[in-house]
Structures are given as structure tokens and as C-alpha cells.
């Protein structure tokens, strides 16, 4: 069975479409805004888990093995790492990540913010979503994915530490703190 990679940029394009970016005045249906926000979050999530696997396992290509390992990267672990990268949360993780580059901090901040709003978009019937914010989240996700590419290309050491700790390190740090 061939592996069909879910590309973060495709998710970003879908998020733009759903939130009505560059579509003029008026707002899309609420369901589109909410699914657009959720899709923007998943674009960043997939970007991060892909980078974690390439950093740690170093597959030559996105194989079934790489896809299987990517399932080990969890939303909770990336949130804990992102909290540490933005200066809060588990002290052992903060020590392991230091120093954190501005680019890594910005990606981590986007992940945390998008995860918060994604929970509202997916589960909160009281979510007062508006198009301006939804487009803002789509742009924040694209900004994070673009910066991820830039940091990978420049072999940013802070970002490499962040990615390397994305596979299992959070559980170890919490167990030993």
C-alpha cells in the first residue's frame, strides 16, 4: 500500500479557502470558519510531527515506517514542549531547550494558540467565531509552517533541539521532575 503524505501546505490552502481569505466581504458559514481554524491547527501539527520524524528517525523518504513513527508524536507532548519553549511549564524541558531562538519561540507560540482555538472550533458550542480572527489564525498557521521550513533549511540548533525532544522526551522529563 502506498503512503499518501498529508502535506501541511495543502492543509494551509484548504484553511484559507474555508475561512474565506481573499474572498471579499461577508463571512463564510460558521461551520466553514470553524473547520478552517481546525485545519490551520492541523497544518502546523503535521508540519511539526513530520519534522520530528525527519530529525529523529531520518528516513530517506516518507515511508510507512516514518508514518507509523509519526503517530508517536502527540498533541499533548508538542503542547508541553511549546509551553517550555515560550518560558513556562516543565522546568526540565525548559532547561533542555535553552537557549530558544526567536523563530522556535514563534512557532511554539503559534502551536499553543492554535491548539486553544482549535479546541473551541471543534468542541465549543459557545465559540463566537468571526472571519477576521479565523483569517488571522490561517495566517498564523502559514507563518509557523513557513518559519519551520526556514529554520530547517538554516539548521537552527534551537529548533533541532525542539524537534528532537518531540519524540518521548516530554514523558521522561515529567517522570523525572
Amino acid at each position, binding site marked *: 500500500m502506498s503512503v499518501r503524505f498529508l502535506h501541511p501546505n495543502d492543509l494551509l490552502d484548504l484553511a484559507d479557502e474555508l475561512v474565506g481569505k481573499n474572498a471579499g466581504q461577508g463571512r463564510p*458559514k*460558521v461551520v466553514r470558519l470553524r473547520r478552517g481554524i481546525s485545519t490551520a491547527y492541523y497544518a502546523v501539527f503535521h508540519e511539526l510531527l513530520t519534522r520530528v520524524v525527519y530529525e529523529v528517525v531520518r528516513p530517506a523518504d516518507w515511508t510507512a515506517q516514518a508514518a507509523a513513527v509519526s503517530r508517536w508524536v502527540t498533541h499533548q507532548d508538542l503542547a508541553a514542549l511549546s509551553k517550555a519553549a515560550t518560558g513556562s511549564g516543565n522546568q526540565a524541558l525548559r532547561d533542555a531547550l535553552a537557549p530558544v531562538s526567536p523563530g522556535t519561540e514563534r512557532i511554539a507560540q503559534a502551536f499553543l494558540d492554535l491548539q486553544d482555538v482549535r479546541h473551541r472550533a471543534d468542541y465549543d458550542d459557545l465559540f463566537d467565531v*468571526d472571519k477576521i480572527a479565523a483569517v*488571522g489564525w490561517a495566517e498564523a498557521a502559514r507563518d509557523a509552517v513557513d518559519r519551520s521550513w526556514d529554520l530547517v533549511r538554516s539548521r537552527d540548533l534551537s529548533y533541532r533541539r525542539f524537534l528532537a525532544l518531540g519524540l518521548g522526551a516530554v514523558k521522561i522529563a515529567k517522570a523525572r521532575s
Partner: protein
Amino acid sequence: MTAPVDSSREAQLLAAISELSAGTTRVVGAEIERRREPDESYLLLTVVLNQPSGETWPSDEFYEIRRQARALTGHVLGDEDTRLSYRTQAREEDDVVAPIEGASGNKNASGDDA
């Protein structure tokens, strides 16, 4: 389920959040409420931003506001599970639902075209 929050820490946080700005983007309001779900309880902080001149807030300014808001929240509330949300002031044209292919014109419970 939501519940009002009334403590000096939350009041301090709301006052500090309300002062935030970055370039042309500024906070015009903030609200905080306690959310109780079957398996968790957390604070929901909603930050209200001014209307942008474009389609949304400038990316760098939105980031800076979010960065400051999260840092302030951690500083004031510590490890309290707090989630942040952002919205803008209501604007009349935002209530006009854009025509979407396949829309029937019927209204559903959310006020959207069905």
C-alpha cells in the same frame, strides 16, 4: 458549563491585558470565565481586538499581542489551566453570510444558510 470568575488575580490579569497593543493592533476588551467540562476545568480568557484596516490583523502585530497575553497570563495565574481566545468587535458586514455554492437560503439554528 460556564461560571463567572471573581478574584483579584483575574481582575489584575484583565487590567493588564486591556493595556496591550502592538502597532495598529490593540486590545479593546477582555473577558474571563471558568469552564467546567465533565473531565476538566479551565479558565477561558477571551481577548477582544480592534477592527483591522485589512482582512485581519497584521501577522507580526497579532503575534506580539498573543505573545504578551500568554506571558502575562502565566505570570499572573501561574500553572492555572488557562486557554486563550481572540475575537474582534462586531461589525455589520461580518453578519452577512457570503454566498456559498450549494447554499439553499434556509436558516439553521446558527443563523447561517443551511
